[in-house]
């Protein structure tokens, strides 16, 4: 009883303090949020809402829009010109995600073995350069490298492989893989640096334990390194997948979707539909479907990384 009273009297001033302190931060908090929320609302949420609205109409951008219901969405899933774009970005994921993550792991592991700090920092700087070069400039440079008289063909001729030289970006079978390789080049450095930093954070004692248990280099990699890098890999996969699914810059600069729609991707198709075909409703529907696909692809990756939980 006495204890209870004591606690009561003791906590009274504390209660008043904490109550007042609890209210003021939350008001201030809203004030800090409003500028960023407004920008987000105007430039992200509002256009998304408008796009959802446009997707239910048939509209040329100037005249009166006509109600189209679900017709645009049906077209996205039945018109081969539109469904093929979704297939193309699925192929691009192989290049944009699998190569940078896979090769990045290998490169990061190699860089970990190298003891000289100068070598590793120079290597990291060189690998991250493609991220700093503007994508448009990189695309133009690569279209020269891959042209019929470009560096790639010159090297192939020099080593006696003249018969496989071609205009890589103009050939129906090699155009999409070529675009994919350009994307892999851009994203490799990002993944390598991310993974290499992640590797640096791994507790050395885990490696010692593995060695004590008799694990070789490869076993060590799969048993210790890879599981510890789960979060970094998830980030890499997320970023590269979004890059692949929403690809526009690289395709626009190098092939504009050609030859013959072999490299047409949804991002470029939305642009064409909206501004050249003047079919704003169909473009909006395709854009929405793409957004949903991106979310559906990213969610499992995010949940996988969250499951790693108590680290």
């Amino acid at each position, binding site marked *: 009883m006495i204890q209870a009273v004591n606690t009561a009297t003791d906590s009274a001033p504390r*209660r008043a303090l904490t109550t007042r302190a609890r209210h003021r931060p939350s008001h201030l908090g809203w004030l800090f949020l409003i500028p960023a929320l*407004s920008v987000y609302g105007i430039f992200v949420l509002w256009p998304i809402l408008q796009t959802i609205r446009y997707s239910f109409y048939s509209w*040329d951008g*100037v005249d009166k829009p006509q109600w189209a219901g679900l017709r645009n969405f049906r077209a996205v899933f039945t018109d081969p010109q539109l469904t093929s774009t979704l297939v193309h970005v699925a192929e691009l994921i192989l290049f944009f995600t699998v190569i940078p993550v896979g090769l990045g792991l290998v490169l990061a592991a190699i860089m970990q073995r190298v003891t000289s700090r100068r070598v590793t920092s120079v290597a990291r700087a060189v690998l991250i350069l493609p991220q700093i070069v503007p994508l448009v400039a990189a695309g133009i440079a690569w279209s020269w490298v891959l*042209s019929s008289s470009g560096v790639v063909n010159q090297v192939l001729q020099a080593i006696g492989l003249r018969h496989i030289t071609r205009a890589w970006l103009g050939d129906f079978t090699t155009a999409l893989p070529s675009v994919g390789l350009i994307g892999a080049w851009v994203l490799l450095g990002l993944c390598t640096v991310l993974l290499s930093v992640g590797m640096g954070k791994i507790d050395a004692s885990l490696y010692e334990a593995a060695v004590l248990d008799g694990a070789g280099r490869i076993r060590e990699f799969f048993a210790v390194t890879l599981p510890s890098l789960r979060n970094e890999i998830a980030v890499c996969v997320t970023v590269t997948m979004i890059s692949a699914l929403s690809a526009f810059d690289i395709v626009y600069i190098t092939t504009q979707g050609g*030859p*013959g729609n072999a490299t047409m991707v949804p991002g470029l198709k939305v642009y064409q539909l909206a501004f050249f075909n003047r079919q704003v409703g169909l473009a909006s529907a395709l854009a929405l479907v793409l957004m949903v696909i991106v979310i559906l692809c990213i969610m499992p990756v995010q949940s996988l990384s969250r499951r790693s939980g108590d680290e």
Partner: protein
Amino acid sequence: MIVDTNREVNPRRGWRRAGQVTGVALALALTIAGCSSGTKASSSPSTNPPTTSPSQSSSIAASGGPPTEEQACGTKPVTMQAYVETGFPDVIDLMHLFTKQYPNVTWNIRQDQFAVLTQNAPLVLSGPNPPDIMRLPQLSGLVHDHLLKNLDSYYDAYGWSSFPSAQLAQLRMPPSGHPRGSGSLWAMGLNYSLTGVFYNKTLAANIGMTSPPKTLAEFDTLLAKAKAAGLTPIVQFNGGATGGLLFPLQQLMADYGPTDAINDWIFQKPGATIDTPSNLEAVKHLKQWIDNGYFNSDANATDYAKMMSKFEHGEGVFMFDGDWESGNLDKLMPGQVGFFLMPPLKEGDKYAAMSAPLTYGIAATAKHADCAAFFFNWVATNPDARQINVEVGGSNPGGPPNLPIPVKEGTLVAQTLAAGKIIAQENTAMDFIANATGAIYAQAWTPEVQKLFAGQESPEGVLQKVQAAYEQEIKSGA
């Protein structure tokens, strides 16, 4: 009351916070939406009175002749808004010359590539400060949306009936936008281009070409000789979003069939089709050229600029292009380049070529429409303006046929202008098949000729697919 000051943040409270934040964000977005003015959809398009403006009719009544500069542009300083295409220095030179002759008129010039112009046209023309003159892509959609000023009153005021009617036919259409070829006048051409075959004189001499071929068969022989000599017979662009093989294809179509049928299809006359037996012959002939290796092997990766670069470096004997390059080629390869019109099927048949106006129009709500129309007339009739058009642009300035076309003898420009006279006499000018609808070039023609080049499409397939896309686009009002 015991207060637990050490308690953890209630996770349920965290969720509520998140919900509150999202709610505020959405509310903000919707409030701003509600406050902002409605979208373009809700505002009605501006109507375009087709009658003559009061000042116009009074000036005609008063002077009895075409409006003078004071009447059209006024005496106070005027700044004209111009939205033009990159790569046409002749247009910029014309505007500067106009200011020299009429100092009260200055120009605010914005330049963009053709693809960007196409994309921006509807938005710019319906915007708050529309251009007084603007380079226009495909017209039908813009006319349909009431975005262009009807030029019929100016046609009457300035007496443009003295211009050959074929020059302006491509710019005429009813307010619905199609079929083209007749109806009100919606734009003018600052000059008139012509297509044909450029050839490298040195390389042509090497394969024994002494004079331009007179028949298609003679041309085929020359191409075979070039291939046998290890040269690239034809260097042509066909990459990216631009299927340049359409140039030789349309020339072949005009060889095998009548130009009227092709123009009917381009102008969207009801019942017109591109899938005809004579056009099929043309596509098959093109396929023969492709299979014989007459084109540069990387055509599907060659864009227009690269094609010009290759030709200028002597990497091709022939090139299908237009006289807009005559001025450039005269400067970069003086005396080394010749030009001939595509030879007909049989000797004595008519020559045909694609010829299109460099289309410029006036926005429906432009502030200085009268002055813009005066500029159009001035470009076609003023001697100094015509000289710039020819010397810098290398193209035919159009206008009344009795006015002289000032040109230096022996230049490439002289050759292309002489060829233009032949086409005008034979009345076989065609619009470009790429212009049939707003999207047919990017959507159908380009992928199809790219596939044809790679052996992935049959000649029949090309025509069938293009016709199907054409019918679908007309139905949806492109």
